[in-house]
């Protein structure tokens, strides 16, 4: 049995929480006492408000909206699912980006009465930007349009135009009613003209995560040195294989130093193995006594990225304090932490059209393209090539807060979109 992580995106009244509630309820993932707590708060007409299954925090219950990313779990005989529920309000792009960063699939929810609206475009573009390749267009509230095929067909066509226009992956469109349970888990007799799968059937059958196709990427998280009488010289590099496969005897290079060696042993749970692949957590031992520490990458010699101190990246700005060019920050590229500066904001991306516009700062929830310079070289790939090694966060050095999500767009100055800005000085 494998695992699928998906995100649900929709606007405030699209019925997103109800849809998740329905998935949990109809797949029998809600237990009796949770139901009893719900029934205590039920509406006067006697129906259970399924949205209450996900609206967890008191402030949300008071305001009747979801204010933060929540995670829900359910398992069918075919799969374990992790649902990321991100709110859809305009001001919460950052939550949507956060949720999409870990998802394999996005369910884009629209209200059948409204069709594709501005927020639908925004949700779709952000999910695509974050590298999601599987999309479901869930046309909800079909009960309120008389289960009309023409309404569904028009919305599906509108959405296909959108994905075509931006060259996005093709979405699977499903007509449903979360409130009544039509086509969520079970196929509905009220939608006889629809011959495709129910939402759950579709979720059970789409391909799951696959990290093995990309070149080998591994970052050292922690160096294991027992220094005991039995193991006086043992040095093991502990980390998770981010992508690709590793094999004993592989020629590797340590980045950013560029030192070369060979994999002497791969250990999984203290057992030596011949090969290991993403996403396994392993310990690598090298043939030579080279200097390796936390944050260093160990990658196959033949497919090594060129470490760089300059890159172009897309940022989603997540802080209430705006970003101005010249700002110094910390880049956390997984286990590598380096000082960095942003000499230039190249442009801002309109999340409804992907159009570029000039920008002199980035405000909360803005998506901007920037030039980034780091104090020490980083071994990155572009986000398009590798979701793991192409992603990073920006951290405010003073508060420690995470202020941006970063996607590497170009790590080689030949591919930069604009001329390089003024040099930046570092003090470390």
């Amino acid at each position, binding site marked *: 049995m*494998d695992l699928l992580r998906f995100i649900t995106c929709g606007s405030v009244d699209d019925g997103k929480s109800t849809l998740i509630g329905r998935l949990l309820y109809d797949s029998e993932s809600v237990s*009796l006492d949770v139901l009893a707590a719900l029934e205590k708060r039920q509406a006067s007409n006697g129906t259970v408000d399924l949205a209450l299954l996900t609206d*967890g925090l008191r402030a949300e219950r008071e305001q009747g909206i979801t204010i933060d990313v929540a995670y829900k779990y359910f398992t069918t005989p075919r799969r374990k699912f992790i649902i990321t529920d991100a709110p859809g309000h305009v001001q919460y792009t950052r939550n949507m980006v956060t949720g999409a960063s870990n998802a394999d699939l996005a369910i884009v929810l629209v209200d059948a009465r409204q069709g594709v609206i501005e927020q639908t475009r925004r949700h779709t573009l952000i999910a695509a930007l974050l590298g999601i390749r599987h999309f479901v267009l869930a046309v909800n509230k079909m009960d309120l349009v008389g289960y009309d095929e023409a309404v569904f067909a028009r919305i599906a066509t509108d959405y296909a135009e959108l994905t075509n226009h931006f060259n996005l992956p093709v979405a699977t469109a499903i007509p449903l009613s979360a409130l009544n349970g039509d086509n969520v888990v079970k196929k509905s007799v009220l939608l006889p003209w629809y011959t495709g799968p129910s939402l759950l059937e579709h979720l059970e059958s789409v391909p799951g995560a696959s990290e093995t196709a990309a070149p080998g990427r591994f970052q050292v998280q*922690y160096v*294991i040195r027992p220094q005991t009488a039995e193991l006086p010289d043992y040095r093991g590099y502990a980390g998770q294989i981010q992508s690709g496969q590793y094999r004993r005897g592989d020629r590797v290079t340590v980045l950013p130093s560029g030192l070369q060696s060979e994999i002497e042993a791969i250990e999984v749970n*203290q057992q030596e193995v011949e*090969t290991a692949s993403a996403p396994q957590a392993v310990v690598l031992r090298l043939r030579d006594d080279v200097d390796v520490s936390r944050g260093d990458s160990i990658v196959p010699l033949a497919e090594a990225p060129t470490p760089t101190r300059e890159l172009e990246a897309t940022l989603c700005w997540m802080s209430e304090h705006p970003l101005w060019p010249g700002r110094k920050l910390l880049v956390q590229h997984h286990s590598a932490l380096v000082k960095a500066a942003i000499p230039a904001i190249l442009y801002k991306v309109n999340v409804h059209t992907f159009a570029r516009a000039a920008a002199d700062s980035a405000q909360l929830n803005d998506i901007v393209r920037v030039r980034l310079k780091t104090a020490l070289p980083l071994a990155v790939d572009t986000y398009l090539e590798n979701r793991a090694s192409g992603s990073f966060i920006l951290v405010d050095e003073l508060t420690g807060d995470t202020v941006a999500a970063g996607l590497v767009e170009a790590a080689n100055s030949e591919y930069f979109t604009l001329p390089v800005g003024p040099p930046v000085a570092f003090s470390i």
Partner: protein
Amino acid sequence: MSTPSFDYLDRLEAEAIHILREVAGQFERPALLFSGGKDSIVLTRLAEKAFRPGRFPFPLVHVDTGHNFPEVLQYRDQLAESLGEKLIVRKVEDTIKRQRLREPGGKYPSRNPLQTYTLLEVIEEFEFDACIGGARRDEEKARAKERIFSVRDEFGQWDPKRQRPELWNVYNGRIQKGENVRVFPISNWTELDVWRYIQRENIALPDIYFGHERRCVVLPTGQLLGLSEHLRLDEDDEIVTRQVRFRTVGDSTCTAAVESDAATVEDIIQDLLLAKVSERGATRLDDNISEAGMEDRKRNGYF
């Protein structure tokens, strides 16, 4: 080479090991909060996978309410011994004396709320900057919104509106003086996942997780509470002997037993697949107080 396919347990395990190693890499004085419950026992197995053949880069810390099941304390000491890792025990009893706190009243006096005081004391005593715990998001709605690296202020308080965005598997543990981080490596596991992992890894558990005969008092809700010296019983309380097991192992005065003759982990998994009552609902008396019970306690520094 063929593409290996990983079971969801493999993925959850890899994620948890990655998180534990991030704690080791990012913090100077971490600790693993060990309750003797199955979730923290699973954490110790994951820590072995993360750090062997080295030592754990953190001690095990147990906050002893004084109301623990004796079987669990015995298990705790044996486990620390067999792992060869350092165990720090701090007692709620001592905090009550030191801070002149009031003992909880009522028929079933729970020291659960007082654990927070002892936890904050031990964090201060050892200057722990990160505390690893076995909490899971499926346990409760407020937990479903908590980050894997959850920053707390010096009073241990959680502010759901000030949470850091947590992107990809990049965990930001940078804190300011006085703050600390609670880390939950098995956030994405469900109760069933934990049991399936225990089965797969053949992890030994305290006996009270399995069906056994026990004298219990029947609560007004119908729940069963194992008899102990800490309960204040009345003459007309109904005392019964039943075949029971515990689904969670907390304070003995607020952890109810469920009727079961499950003798093995496989039996328990079958029980769970049929079970219609969630783990906290079945066994925790303290969460029923108000619907926002957990949120309130977390805001106040509870785990």
